[in-house]
């Protein structure tokens, strides 16, 4: 296996090159030939099962993994139905003994494709694929089993396998183990993936799907042409235009539609698109020929689309992170439809739509609204954030994720995600913030994952539409990293967060803290001046005050706040009063101004968090925050001022 795997991986890399593989496969041996022999024998058994399986080109691709045998059958089946030639070709292609039928089953769908195997000789593509398949078969580990999963005809089965292939494509390294997990519906990767994935089986099946099932929404489609006319092209820059893409696409055939996936909040391209040709032949040719094409200095990735992925992509802009996370740990899970989504379930459901739910207010809110959802998305992948603060364009990642990690690979996708958020166009402050948060969330997340991811990353933006991200960014960026990294913050923060799992507020709290520090410095004197009162109250949840502060800090100068403090106190509810006294006259003031607009949000969020923190051990927190504030204050004074 290992050697095989290695080979596969190598092949995989070269897959993009296309022709390389062929040679390699040949070199590696015999497998094709052997496979064929094996396949032949096995075919008979499966004939009945796969009568309606279409082999098509896709099939070849898929085969890599396990299915040579099964696929062969399928092919045979198809062939019988349609062309007699398949069986032979299939056998060769499939190679894998395991050839679980699952792959075959799917193949049935390909029945009608023009691409068909039998014509292997017909096209270099086919041949290549066969080679690949063979390899896959060889390397195919016993993953054939996974194929069986797919055996349900129809896409479902296919899907299972697909994920794997895709993953491999994207991530050769990950493949071996991950295929299952990463299984992304993208069948496309199948062919590519095959070489990588040990789980060829999946690939095969995946491939199979690709051809026929993919094209059609319905799982079984004997009449489906093997040729899938829909492709996904990913790993594009966000500034790569549709015109640039079209000029290259038209070389392969008549293009029916190009649909870019962009971030709903900002309109920015996610870096991948769905291309539909009129002819499946064009699609296959494009997939082979354009894969790896350099657009603006970046090699694109082309993969076939499966019905699932199409649905996923179309329905909502699945959170990449979700997929990312999912695929890794899940292994087989991804195989199911909506795999990416399933994983994503942990994350904010709101993310499902393009507009992460927050979009509604997000866009309208001052400042960031648009960014909020976007960022949140990236942020959600907390792991991503931490890993790649502002790495760059997440488009590719998104693509992969949407599909549950299709060809474009898990890791890259994961990486992309945060990067996507942190595009050059984004405020660097955010990046800092993100990073900072990432740092925090790291430890916090595992435990708090479910609520937090949704909340936390989005926390900033998501917490309140009215919260101006710029403020957060500023505060954070300037001190955030420092603060985060610093001391006190870490300690209390996680604690705070745990306390206040009131979602949105987590982020706020965090931000608040930083803010406080900035004001804290200035206030110190005043705070203590108010001293007696505040100290006592200080014990009350610092969190609350912090929350308030945040809002206030945002806009007002301390001086004004101080003056107003008293007024503010009266005004706010009791809780707030207490907090206010604690330290922030000016904060209250700020808040006051904000209140009319944000009160609702603050109250909502705050109350939950406040009560929580208070119940907990407000005192402890207070003390902590206090000292922290002091420190922060000193440190932050400059920035805030």
């Amino acid at each position, binding site marked *: 296996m290992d050697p095989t795997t290695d080979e596969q991986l190598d092949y995989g890399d070269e897959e993009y090159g296309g022709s390389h593989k062929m040679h390699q496969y040949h070199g590696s041996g015999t497998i094709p030939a052997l496979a064929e022999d094996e396949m032949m024998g096995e075919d008979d058994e499966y004939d009945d099962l796969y009568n309606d399986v279409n082999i098509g080109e896709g099939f070849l691709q898929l085969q890599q993994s396990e299915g040579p045998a099964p696929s062969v059958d399928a092919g045979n089946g198809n062939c019988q139905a349609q062309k007699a030639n398949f069986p032979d070709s299939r056998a060769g292609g499939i190679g894998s003994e395991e050839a679980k039928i699952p792959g075959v089953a799917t193949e049935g769908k390909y029945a009608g494709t023009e691409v068909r195997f039998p014509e292997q000789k017909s096209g270099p593509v086919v041949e290549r694929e066969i080679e690949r398949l063979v390899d896959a078969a060889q390397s195919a580990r016993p993953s054939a089993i996974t194929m069986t999963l797919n055996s349900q005809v129809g896409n479902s089965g296919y899907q299972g396998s697909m994920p794997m292939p895709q993953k491999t494509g994207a991530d050769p390294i990950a493949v071996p183990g991950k295929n299952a997990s990463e299984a992304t519906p993208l069948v496309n990767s199948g062919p590519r993936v095959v070489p990588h994935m040990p789980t060829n089986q999946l690939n095969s099946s995946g491939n199979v799907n690709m051809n026929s099932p993919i094209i059609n929404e319905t799982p079984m489609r004997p009449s489906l042409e093997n040729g899938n006319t829909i492709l996904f092209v990913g790993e594009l820059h966000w500034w790569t*235009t*549709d*015109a640039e893409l079209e000029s290259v696409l038209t070389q392969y055939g008549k293009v029916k539609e190009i649909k870019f996936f962009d971030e709903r909040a900002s309109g920015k391209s996610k870096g991948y698109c769905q291309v539909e040709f009129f002819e499946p032949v064009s699609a296959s040719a494009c997939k082979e020929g354009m894969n790896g094409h350099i657009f603006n200095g970046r090699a694109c990735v082309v993969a076939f689309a499966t019905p699932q992925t199409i649905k996923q992509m179309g329905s909502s802009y699945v959170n990449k992170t979700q997929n990312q996370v999912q695929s890794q740990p899940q292994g087989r899970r991804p195989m199911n439809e909506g795999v990416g989504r399933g994983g994503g379930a942990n994350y904010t459901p709101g993310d499902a739509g393009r507009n992460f739910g927050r979009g509604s*207010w997000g866009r*309208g809110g001052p400042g960031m609204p648009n960014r909020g959802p976007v960022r949140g998305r990236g942020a959600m992948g907390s792991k991503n954030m931490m890993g790649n603060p502002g790495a760059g364009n997440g488009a590719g990642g998104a693509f992969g994720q949407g599909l549950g990690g299709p060809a474009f690979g898990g890791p890259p996708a994961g990486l992309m995600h945060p990067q996507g958020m942190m595009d050059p166009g984004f405020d660097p402050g955010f990046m800092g913030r993100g990073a900072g948060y990432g740092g925090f969330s790291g430890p916090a997340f595992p435990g708090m994952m479910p609520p937090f991811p949704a909340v936390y990353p989005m926390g900033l933006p998501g917490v309140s539409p009215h919260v101006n991200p710029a403020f957060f960014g500023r505060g954070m960026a300037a001190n955030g990293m420092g603060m985060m990294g610093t001391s006190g913050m870490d300690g209390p923060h996680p604690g705070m967060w745990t306390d206040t799992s009131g979602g949105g507020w987590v982020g706020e709290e965090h931000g608040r803290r930083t803010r406080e520090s900035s004001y804290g410095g200035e206030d110190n004197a005043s705070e203590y001046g108010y001293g007696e009162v505040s100290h006592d109250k200080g014990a009350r949840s610092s969190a609350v005050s912090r929350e308030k502060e945040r809002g206030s800090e945002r806009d007002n100068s301390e001086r004004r706040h101080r003056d107003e403090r008293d007024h503010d106190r009266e005004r706010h509810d009791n809780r707030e009063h207490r907090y206010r006294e604690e330290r922030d006259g000016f904060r209250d003031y700020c808040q006051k101004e904000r209140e009319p*607009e944000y009160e609702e949000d603050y109250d909502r969020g705050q109350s939950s968090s406040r009560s929580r923190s208070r119940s907990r051990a407000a005192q402890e927190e207070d003390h902590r925050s206090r000292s922290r504030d002091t420190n922060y204050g000193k440190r932050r004074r400059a920035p805030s001022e």
Partner: protein
Amino acid sequence: MVTSSIVNTYPLSSYTFGTKEPKMEKDTSVADRLARMKVNYMKEGMRTSVEGILLVQEHNHPHILLLQIGNTFCKLPGGRLKPGENEIEGLKRKLSSKLAANSPGLQPNWQIGECVAIWWRPNFETIMYPYCPPHITKPKECKKLFVVHLSEREYFAVPKNLKLLAVPLFELYDNIQRYGPVISTIPQQLSRFQFNMIHP
């Protein structure tokens, strides 16, 4: 086009509002609308639409005249330009179609001011952005918003199926949920104008 950063706004009371026959929406649903948009795009290319921001003042605060369809959806008076039509002329045509009485004698003399905002629709979807996203070379629609300087006295005839509302700027500000991104950001576009509130 009048280019001036001063806008004279008159109280609502200085205008007379009548009614006229209903002006039904051409599309029964969003999907229909998008489908029709697609068809038109194939025929005529990118759609250019123009909308007018008609301002009045009440309580010393500018109000915008919006047409309300149904109970919730508000839109600015305006519409799609014919292929090759001049923007200003097209806007006048649309304003008259929506708000002017049918009789030729009562056609308002529309004073179209500056274009204060341009929104782009990159795909056949309902989303628009105040810029054309960088990866889109063929936006599907371009919507331009113009300030319309109303004269002191006007007679408006509002179609029976629509309601004409005068919405204060503060109601629109930061209210994207209710009014959408285009209308809710009008206060920002108008912030650079100086409003001359003329009282009765």
